[in-house]
């Protein structure tokens, strides 16, 4: 069995022979994975700037700028990029997170040259006009209303993020605020563009049925002609060690349940314990049987629902244990139940050698399954480069994970979960129906 595991890991870990991973003279990092079994080519341009790099008073600028990148350039009209990709049968999009802004395209092979030329063009030749900015400000404000203002769960998340993180750069919704978006100017956008949108702050990934030498030659002829310039964004402080508040209470227009959440911060994924934490998260939060939920809901019947969620950023993350109850249970009781369940998990019955082996196996299944999709692989290459410093980790990380021992996972539990700074959030519904207010306390009698 061990031999089989290692063989599979090696299979999933092999860096393809024709893999290209170079840095051009202007600082642009280029990763090319040729694979003729893929029927489409994925291109991604990762700009290493996100909402966490925005200044106070310009929240949402990274996202607003992402919209502007689909505008006209000095030689191409508004909409050219999207129309080109679409007429070829492809898809294009972009996303802005706290840590990065990514421009995606997936096209049938014949259209990839045109995509690369257009990506190079808009990296420096964007025509920023007041007319276009004013239009995009309206569009982004509608997006903000859609995604946050009119969605109770999103409103809750944004409020929690802001209250928990205070002045940390991750405290702000990447969509920004309506006031800041309204204040954006062409000059401000030009300053942002001139600071961050340069080859030396970007990573180009190409995956699919391409000739690697010819692709690199085209990249050099297009992107390579752009000078390196600007300066990289300031680094974002780690979430691990950040002075979070100990507790927080929130109200929102959610279904009639009260939710208790107890979380701990996690270190950035490039720390030496990163692989052990990844296995720990797989064991806790990505399996069909959740050990925490089994204690709180199935066995002790102390909540309607409970579970474990994790969130990861480039500079840290969090692990959250939550339980949801009808609004009759006191806040203190809800947290006591969570703490008792965590104490029970300290017994580590759920953390056996077999469980660790199966967690690794599940990650391997996911890895080999997603590897046939050009876009998935491109995303992993981009993320590994920016979050952990080396695109090749997309191929070699399974070997890293395979080397993690049960003792290392147990240590990660002790240090980061049980030894971490505990943060408590309690969420109450704004409205509770009369019958639940009156009779909710009967719930456990019928459980």
């Amino acid at each position, binding site marked *: 069995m061990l031999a089989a595991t290692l063989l*599979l890991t090696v299979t999933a870990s092999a860096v393809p022979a024709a893999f290209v991973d170079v840095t051009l003279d202007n600082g642009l990092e280029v990763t090319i994975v*040729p694979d*003729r*079994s*893929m*029927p*489409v*080519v994925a291109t991604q341009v990762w700009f290493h700037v996100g909402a966490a790099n925005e200044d106070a008073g310009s929240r949402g600028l990274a996202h607003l700028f992402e919209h502007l990148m689909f505008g006209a350039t000095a030689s191409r009209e508004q909409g*050219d990029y*999207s*129309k080109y990709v*679409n*007429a*070829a*049968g*492809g898809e294009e999009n972009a996303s802005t997170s706290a840590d990065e802004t990514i421009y995606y395209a*997936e*096209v*049938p*092979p*014949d*259209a*990839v*040259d*045109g995509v690369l030329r257009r990506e190079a063009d808009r990296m420096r030749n964007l025509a920023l006009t007041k007319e276009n900015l004013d*239009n995009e*400000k309206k*569009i982004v*404000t*509608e997006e903000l209303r*859609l995604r946050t203002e*009119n969605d109770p769960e999103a409103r809750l998340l944004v409020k929690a993020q802001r209250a928990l993180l205070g002045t940390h750069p991750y405290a702000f919704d990447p969509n920004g605020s309506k006031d800041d978006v309204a204040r954006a100017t062409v000059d401000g956008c030009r300053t942002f563009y001139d600071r961050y949108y340069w080859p030396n702050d970007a990573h180009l990934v190409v995956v699919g*049925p*391409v000739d690697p030498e*010819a*692709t690199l030659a*085209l990249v050099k002829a297009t992107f390579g002609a752009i000078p390196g310039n600007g300066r990289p964004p300031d680094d974002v402080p780690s979430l691990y060690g950040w002075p979070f508040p100990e507790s927080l209470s929130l109200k929102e*227009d959610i*279904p009639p*349940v009260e939710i208790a959440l107890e979380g701990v911060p996690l270190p950035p994924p490039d720390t030496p314990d990163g692989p052990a934490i990844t296995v720990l998260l797989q064991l806790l939060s990505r399996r*069909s*049987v959740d050990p925490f939920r089994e204690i709180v809901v*199935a066995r002790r019947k102390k909540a309607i629902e409970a579970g474990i969620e994790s969130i990861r950023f480039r500079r840290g993350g969090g692990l959250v244990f939550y339980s949801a109850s009808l609004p009759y249970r006191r806040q203190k009781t809800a947290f006591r139940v969570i703490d008792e369940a965590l104490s029970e998990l300290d017994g580590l019955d759920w953390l056996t050698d077999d*469980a660790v082996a*199966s967690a*690794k*196996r*599940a*990650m*391997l*299944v*996911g890895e*080999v*399954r997603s*590897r*046939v999709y*050009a876009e998935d692989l491109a995303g992993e290459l981009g993320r590994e480069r920016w979050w952990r410093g080396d695109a090749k980790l997309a191929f070699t990380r399974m070997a890293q994970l395979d080397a993690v021992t049960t003792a290392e996972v147990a240590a990660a539990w002790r240090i980061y979960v049980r030894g971490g700074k505990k943060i408590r959030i309690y969420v109450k519904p704004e409205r509770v*129906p009369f019958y639940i207010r009156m009779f909710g306390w009967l*719930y456990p009698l019928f*459980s």
Partner: protein
Amino acid sequence: MALPALLLTAAAAASAIAVPVDPAPRVTTWAVDAGTTGALVSDHRAPSVSIRVEFPVGTWSPWAKAHHASEAFGEQDDDPERALRKRADALGVSLGVGMEDREASVRATCLKRDLEETLALIRDVLRNARYDEKELRRQDRERAIAWKGNDTDVQFRLGQAAARELFRDPEDPRRRDWEKPPSLETHAAKLAASRDQLILFPGRTVGFAGDLTEDEAKEAARSLLPASGGEAPPDMAPRLGALVPASERPGERSIPIRKLTQVYFAYGRDSLPWNDPRRPAYLVANHVFGGSFYSRLYVALRHEAGDTYGAGTRESGDVAPGVYGAATFTRAQNAATIEAKLKETLAVFHDKGISEEERAAAVGYLTGSRAFGRQSAEQILSRWMSERRMGLPPGFSDDVVERAAKLTLPEINAFIRDFYDPAQFTMIKAVAK
């Protein structure tokens, strides 16, 4: 608005850096028994196998409703000790059991070396009689609470309103799906009996995608299910009711929702079934009207004046009509403006049709985008199973695009004058309460 011909030429030009793509794997089929078809899409790129076992009973089936088959099938992997799910976790298998509109299915993906154990797990799931009754009762209460969340879910409320307007019979599953569900059956013996019947009905499919040879797949399929037994019950097939004629639908309806700062619009009618002979024309027309980032709707409602973030068309339904329509939203103060533009965009589209350049761009998209469905063996198997489930010939999805590419501009515009008649459309709005 018109797409420069130069762009189309550029998109069609051969690439200097692309290389020929390996041919996509094909579907191989065989009879497992009198009521069961086997299917394999062999792909040896990765040492994994995806298994999909499908049964011809879905939530739309009257038999399924009468026998609580949705929970009988969907909860069969959850025994009180979670023994089955723990086995799945131990194998690193993501096991999915559930029921959709027209089918029930078990899905799993495993490493090839774990195939035997995964097949054994599926067999044990399909004969598990130890349902977790307490968990079912908990789910029932949770569903009742979660249902309250729909009050403030804009997309749900719009979908519910559209279904109520379009499908006359409250028991039509296309309408019933949007109403509060009845309580779950929680009696394990009843659920097991229902599931035991369901899995024997003929019309089953055992599909494999991945690192298997045909012989290996046939061997695996042979022992997976009990022999198919007898005939399907007369009430197994979905019973769909009549549509409310456009002349009887209200021209407009408003849905009040708490705390909204935007108005959301769904401007819809009944959709065109997949097997309708006009479907090829529809694919082209829909792409131009609302199917892309530079469609008529996107240009009129987003790019020209920033009225919205999103505008486009949505479609439900399959070989039976569902709901088709244009959807968008804007700040409350701008509602009248965008509503007028939405109506005008449809009216102009209906009256004037599309241009030759728009037709060519749509055909370019439809033909080129087929490559996305050939990326994995799982996708190819899934499409084949979907076509089979709907009673469509294999390759139907590709064929309809080929037919779309051959249509002339006058043929497409004639279709638009018929299907996009504004008199057929109802305006549903979600507004602040």
